């Protein structure tokens, strides 16, 4: 029984889901009133890791509004438990949702995220209903907040 409990708790705490592109796309299309801020990153990518606090801060600032920050890790799936989970736990990110994208052939899905994407990370997609803004941005807290606000204003 206690073993079962531990196993259940393990699943709950493992938290970080592995998704394919189809699942990811359905997750960012759930509600047309919600602004989704989707950041593509990896633990090995220095500029990505540097800008992550800005995303967590954005998620906290707008916690009472219809918005979701989704951090999509491009670490290899075998690093999900080894690197991504400890990293997120250590950083204490609780407002942002975190997933690991498990799509082995980048050349087949990069264009489906956005045709203008070269494949470099960090890259961020803002999406609300039919409106999208994509770019290989490098954000700090102020720049992310102002980009988010102007995107939301434009999509009202």
């Amino acid at each position, binding site marked *: 029984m206690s073993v079962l409990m531990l196993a259940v708790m393990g699943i709950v705490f493992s938290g970080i889901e592995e998704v394919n592109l189809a699942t990811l796309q359905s997750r960012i299309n759930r509600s047309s009133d919600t602004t989704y801020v989707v950041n593509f990153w990896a633990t090995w990518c220095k500029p990505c890791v540097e800008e992550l606090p800005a995303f967590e801060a954005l998620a906290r600032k707008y916690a009472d509004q219809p918005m979701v920050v989704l951090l999509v890790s491009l670490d290899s799936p075998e690093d999900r438990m080894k690197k991504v989970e400890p990293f997120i736990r250590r950083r204490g990110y609780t407002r942002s949702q975190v997933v690991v994208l498990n799509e082995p052939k*980048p*050349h087949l899905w990069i264009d489906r995220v956005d045709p203008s994407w070269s494949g470099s990370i960090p890259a961020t997609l803002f999406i609300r209903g039919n409106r999208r803004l994509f770019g*290989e941005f490098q954000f700090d807290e102020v720049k992310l907040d102002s980009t988010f606000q102007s995107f939301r204003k434009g999509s009202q």
Partner: protein
Amino acid sequence: MRLDRISLMSFFFCVFMALQVQHSAAFGDGVAVGDVAPDFKLMNVDGRMVELSDYKTKKGAIIVFTCNHCPYSIKYEDRIIQLHEAFAPLGFPVIAINPNDATKVPEDSFENMKVRASEKKFRFPYLVDESQQVAKAYGAKRTPHVYVVFNTAEGPSVQYIGAIDDNASDASAVETKFVRDAVTSLIDGKLPSTSLTKAIGCTIKWKN
């Protein structure tokens, strides 16, 4: 009459220039498949200068923008060495170029490039693009980013841009080897069936 011809010529010249500008604007920065490969003159880890034009007697070259620190470059290091081993004898040697700003990533400094090249026994040049002008001229965005160049009568022509293959993390799970396929096609006298691919990689660390 003669004046007319000159003004007509300058008219065509202007149209030509305008088209050139439009062309480069349409493709953003860098080269597209079919464009002439920009020449370069960069310092190798052995202290000698290497130019693309040094390679004009070869069939072509496999130019790889790569670096020391990027995990994707590291994952591909052995595959880059294998490309050189397989294709240098067939006229397509590898030229590796590190475009990263070493003040941002000390691991990518010229000294560290020398260390890596000797550790991994690179048999191809590993050049430093100190000014980052070559990466900009080609439009390289990430490491690794490959440009397969084919020497034609009109000069070196870019015939493939993109990833080495379709699986960075697991060489044994690769299904399509883009660079190998492209070079093999060119050796066989055919155009590559896939000439442009995208891949995830580390953003080139540009100077501020």
